[in-house]
């Protein structure tokens, strides 16, 4: 165990920081056209992704032709940390870069890589992930959106819901049922669907915080005709990709959970002393204790994540990794509410503040996205209990 990485990793850090200082988008650029959805790639974001791709800084662990530099996992970790510290988003289409492009690279054919994966990596196209349905949430394998092969085309009918970024995305990585007779895990396939295809209706879902900026959507497919060469991988073999997609998502997602929690903590601590001073004296220690518990969570999340990461780097298994989504998303939610409560009667205010686009209470509502999506906290506990602790189903 040691607190710092070796000199070669530090040299890598300095190299990236120097490049970042020269090439990062300016605060003014980013503020002039903020991304309003996870499918929205503003001009500056597209150019920024392209610059990272060309310089091998988009996915450092990949080879140069895919926007990387064959960096190791520790270097990738350092890269992600420095990018976050600098306050620059790596992408405004995280599911495209983090899940969909890697899945197409893993499972797709050459044409799909050329026309779908690479444009995402160059910041030219944005993607959304069509998974959940009204009847298939945590139990994804129950999905019922149908893709029927008719000559050279699939004809797709059904409905997706909670589809992040579908209101802006260029294409959808769509999970659909291609064999209704097979057991539910065995009749699922993935098809790439251009969102401009006739028969698709996207209906944004206003959320309980910042309803004017919807990111989640309902997506309706009514006899949508898609060329059959848009099938990703083998027919009826989509379930492997569902697991693969989430594996991509969880690869380094623990780190964004940690960094997000640290960022929130760093934002609340400077506000806290003045807020505590406004409280009645008897309340102060109680409220302060809640913040201390969150401060411990933030440090613990980093330690736990780094410990699991170190085990993986050494080729071992890391049960800690299974805990990270549960821990960071729940911690984030606790912290947001405690921070909101610091405001006394201001706790219930909404709207932009001098420091932020939203208040702590709005952030509190937003944190439910973390505890519900991509495997709810309850599903995470099931996974931990069954797959890590080996408890019977």
């Amino acid at each position, binding site marked *: 165990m*040691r607190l710092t990485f070796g000199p070669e990793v530090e040299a890598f850090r300095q190299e990236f920081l120097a490049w970042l200082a020269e090439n990062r988008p300016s605060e003014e650029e980013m503020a002039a056209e903020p991304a309003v959805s996870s499918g929205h790639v503003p001009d500056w974001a597209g150019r920024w992704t392209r610059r990272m791709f060309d310089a091998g800084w988009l996915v450092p662990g990949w080879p140069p032709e895919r926007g990387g530099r064959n960096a190791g996992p520790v270097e990738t970790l350092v890269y992600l940390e420095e990018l976050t510290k600098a306050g620059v988003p790596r992408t405004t289409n995280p599911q495209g870069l983090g899940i969909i492009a890697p899945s197409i690279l893993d499972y797709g054919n050459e044409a799909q890589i050329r026309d779908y994966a690479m444009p995402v990596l160059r910041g030219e196209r944005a993607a959304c992930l069509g998974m959940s349905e009204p009847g298939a949430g945590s139990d994804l394998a129950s999905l019922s959106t149908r893709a029927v092969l008719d000559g050279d085309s699939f004809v797709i009918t059904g409905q997706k819901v909670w589809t992040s970024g579908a209101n802006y995305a260029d294409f959808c990585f769509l999970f659909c049922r291609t064999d209704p007779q097979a057991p539910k895990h065995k009749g699922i396939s993935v098809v790439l669907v251009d969102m401009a295809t006739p028969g698709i209706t996207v209906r944004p879902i206003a959320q309980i915080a910042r309803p004017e900026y919807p990111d989640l959507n309902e997506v309706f497919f009514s006899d949508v005709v898609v060329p059959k060469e848009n099938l990703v991988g083998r027919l009826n073999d989509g379930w492997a990709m569902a697991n693969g997609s989430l594996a991509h998502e969880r690869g380094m997602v623990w780190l964004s959970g940690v960094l997000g929690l640290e960022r929130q903590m760093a934002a609340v601590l400077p506000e806290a002393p003045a807020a505590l001073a406004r409280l009645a004296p008897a309340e102060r*220690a109680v409220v302060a204790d809640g913040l201390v*518990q969150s*401060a411990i969570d933030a440090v613990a999340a980093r330690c736990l994540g780094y410990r699991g990461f170190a085990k993986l780097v050494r080729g071992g298994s890391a049960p800690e990794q299974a805990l990270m989504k549960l821990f960071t998303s729940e911690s984030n939610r606790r912290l947001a509410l405690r921070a909101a409560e610091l405001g006394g009667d201001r706790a219930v205010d909404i709207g932009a503040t001098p420091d932020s686009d939203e208040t702590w209470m709005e952030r509190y509502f937003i944190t439910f996205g973390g505890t519900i999506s991509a495997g709810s906290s309850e599903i995470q506990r099931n996974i931990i209990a069954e797959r890590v602790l080996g408890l019977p189903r």
Partner: protein
Amino acid sequence: MDLEFSEDEAALRDNVRAVLAGICPPAAVRAVFEGKGDPSSVWSRMVELDWPGLGLPEEAGGLGMGYVAVALVAEELGRAVAPGAFLATVTQFAPALRELAGPTDLLTRVAAGEVTGTVALAEEGGWEPAAVVATARETADGWLLAGTKRAVLDGGTADEVLVIARAEGTRGDEGLGAFLVEGRGLAATPRPVIDPTLPLADLALEGVVVPAGRALVPPGAPGLAEALERAGQEATVALAASTVGACRVVFERTVDYAKVREQYGRPIGSFQALKHRMADMFLAVERATALCYFAALTIAEEDPRRAQAASMAKAAAGECQELVARDGLQLHGGIGVTWENDLHFPVKRAITGDTLYGNAVHHRARLARMLGLAA
């Protein structure tokens, strides 16, 4: 930051665990709890294996393996619910001696396992040096002590006791002094406690006279409070690690039990209500473990975050104890609250470890001050 064991650290951990399985099997732990055991043989074996000097520098007769090695041993001691002088001597007395006086003949003898020791710090007011009210008055024969020390680990058996007392009329961090007193010269009242593997005693100081040569730091010498604070961090993290080790055993036994105990025709571990509680227990154990290792590293590497990290580790260990002891006992059902089942040994070890050197609430209050959230 690399928080996984190196090969050397993993080898040490495996070795310590194997040794403790031999010298401190469950039957030996039970014997201590039933008043029939003799912990001195456990300590003798630790001395033969050079554990007292593991973390001490070579110029003080130690092995120079640093604080991480000490914390790993402490965790394993908690796991085995092992008795013996290690925690008091190696994680409390030795660090205080080193911080206060540097390498000395006495420290060399501690490293060699020839002398056991402890620190008499706590009083009614708690675990902070600033809360000490015991006094030391200079007389022609030496320093005359007065007051009562509480909950001194190994306070009835240690060869040497480092007593913290202050000049009359001083308060806070000012006027503190440190005195070496032979254990046999102190009136020790053993405390009836839940965990006899961590024996505590209250010490009456009235009438104790310390010769000038054994006043390690005379009252009012600068820097004592800070040195005690640093030594206290080592004691704190070791207790946190011991607590986490004990919690991990409770957790593991609970999961094992839930897999085999059947009700309604199925293992109780298949019920989702219990699964979720065990998932939360696992998180609490791993959260506290990771913080313990981080805190141990900040001490080993002299990182400025060590004060905060130590309190976070101790607070997390205490929170872990609260959850794991409660749900571990609860999920065992009736068998868990019987004396015959060994589960209560690590539970009591964990609760005691939480209590000593300040429980979770104490360390969160410290953190509130360190983070600028309290005066």
